[in-house]
């Protein structure tokens, strides 16, 4: 079910270079198999559990400048840009 190709695809989705994919194959497969138990659960309701908030209680649209100069705490160049790698 979970093979090398699948593990590498998952690694690609979460952008982790799996240097030893084999190490993960068995464990992920074992745990997914355990998750498959959910298939056997009989539900008598489609309800899910989520917090709710009334639209009227949301944050007011007010501009408040950040109390710190955040960019000074980040990795930046002399022009206060964040430097990203080359985007092909």
């Amino acid at each position, binding site marked *: 079910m*979970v093979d090398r190709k699948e*593990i590498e695809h*998952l*690694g690609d*989705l*979460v*952008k*982790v*270079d*799996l*240097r030893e994919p084999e*190490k*993960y194959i068995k*464990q*992920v497969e*074992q*745990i*997914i198999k*355990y*998750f498959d*138990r*959910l*298939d056997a*659960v009989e*539900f008598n*309701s*489609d*309800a*899910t*559990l989520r*917090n709710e*908030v009334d639209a009227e*209680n*949301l*944050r007011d649209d007010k501009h408040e400048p950040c109390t*710190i100069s*955040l960019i000074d*705490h*980040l*990795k930046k160049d002399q022009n206060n840009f*964040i*430097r*990203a*790698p*080359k*985007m*092909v």
Partner: protein
Amino acid sequence: MNLGISATEFVSQAKAGTISVEEFVAKTLDRIKLVEDKIHAFITVDYQNALAKAKEIDKKIKSKDKVGTCFGMPISIKDNICTAGIKTTCASKMLENFVAPYDATVVSRLKSEDAIIVGKVNLDEFAMGSTTEFSYFGPSRNPWNVDYVPGGSSGGSGVSVSAQECLASLGSDTGGSVRSPASFCSVVGLKPTYGLVSRYGLVSYANSIEQVGPMARTVEDVAFLLNIISGYDSHDDTTVKNEHVDYTKDITLGISGKKIGIITQMIGEGIDKEVASATNRAISKLQDLGAECVPISLDAVEHSVAAYYTIASAEASSNLSRYDNLRYGFDFGTEGYEFKAFILKARSNFGPEVVRRMLLGAYVLSAGYYGKYYLKAQKVRAMIKAQLDEAFKKVDFLVSPTMPILPYKVGEKIDDPLKMYLTDINTITANLSGIPAISVPFEISSSGLPIGVQLFANSFEEKKLLQAAYALQETTNLPEVPL
């Protein structure tokens, strides 16, 4: 000077002037230096600021200035809770040198009450684990026997309180991460109702189910901390606007006439014999105090581990996406890299358990699988909550062993993740349903290892829950930590 007093006792002595805050904090820091080699609770200790702050508070006390209710109480903070100016590493190489530019709401509330943050304590990387062995900085060890795990993921919190390196600690509880180390280290640990305590500044792992929770030596101490950290926060949309409650008031009320349900799924099969018999003794004690105890079956609990790890890994895989080493992180530049190569390199610094959960999360959220895994897991949550609501119509509290097993040896389960996941069976119910749960130290096993008992109440009934926990605590007589 006794560093093993309760936080409440410390406050009354500091207030009365019978304790010098500076001396207490200095002794605490000495203690940390003395025992850290053996137990490794801390990732960062803030020696200088802690002492300076203690002097400042002593001055305020002497000159009768207004002093915050903590009176310089030394506290440790789990290292996934942001503290301005002190590193917040999440026990990960990814954030090895990360200094948050802001305080978590719980931290700023403690500071404004004159608590002293003595340092940041160890955890499983990004709180993913049940033993604190998955820390990039190495495992913490159980002060009751250093060959054993202290529980986790808030292992450093449990160890630091238990080993008298501080008076109290804040942990975070996603699936039992406060209660597991509380049980294994013989301290009190509370997982509050989801939405009672702000998560602003808590580095997210599974954000739909986790809460910051207080850990301390006594139930009163935990109530005291909850008074400070609970309540609506304008930085967290999931906090609830309830009226403020004083959790310490009437804490001695007792549980006479209350009804307690014993969760049959949590005390039967698979439970360590000594843990089971200790729990039964706790139940008899509660009955002696006038509570009526009845068995309650929550069959949805059987699905809880699968549901919990589905949700936790799905959310983790998304929450941990932001660590790409562009805006913050360890220092290697972007020059000469193409985007994908850069990000793959940066993110291969996550530890194996974190990677495992991200892979699992990617799997269950992949196109076409949402209905099969995540949605079903969400429905299990609702099912558990519905069964709990039914139960709480009949009983005031529920009881179970906090952990189904005794603390085990470091390294024993580290290579079998599923086996480790299954040890969370008793704690995750509270996270999936959002209800509060507390672990109270109850006995020490024949092998000298702590056993905790867990009590649950319905959502936002922390006051009642703390009264019951206090009643249980008063039946115990536990030895000093042998460290």
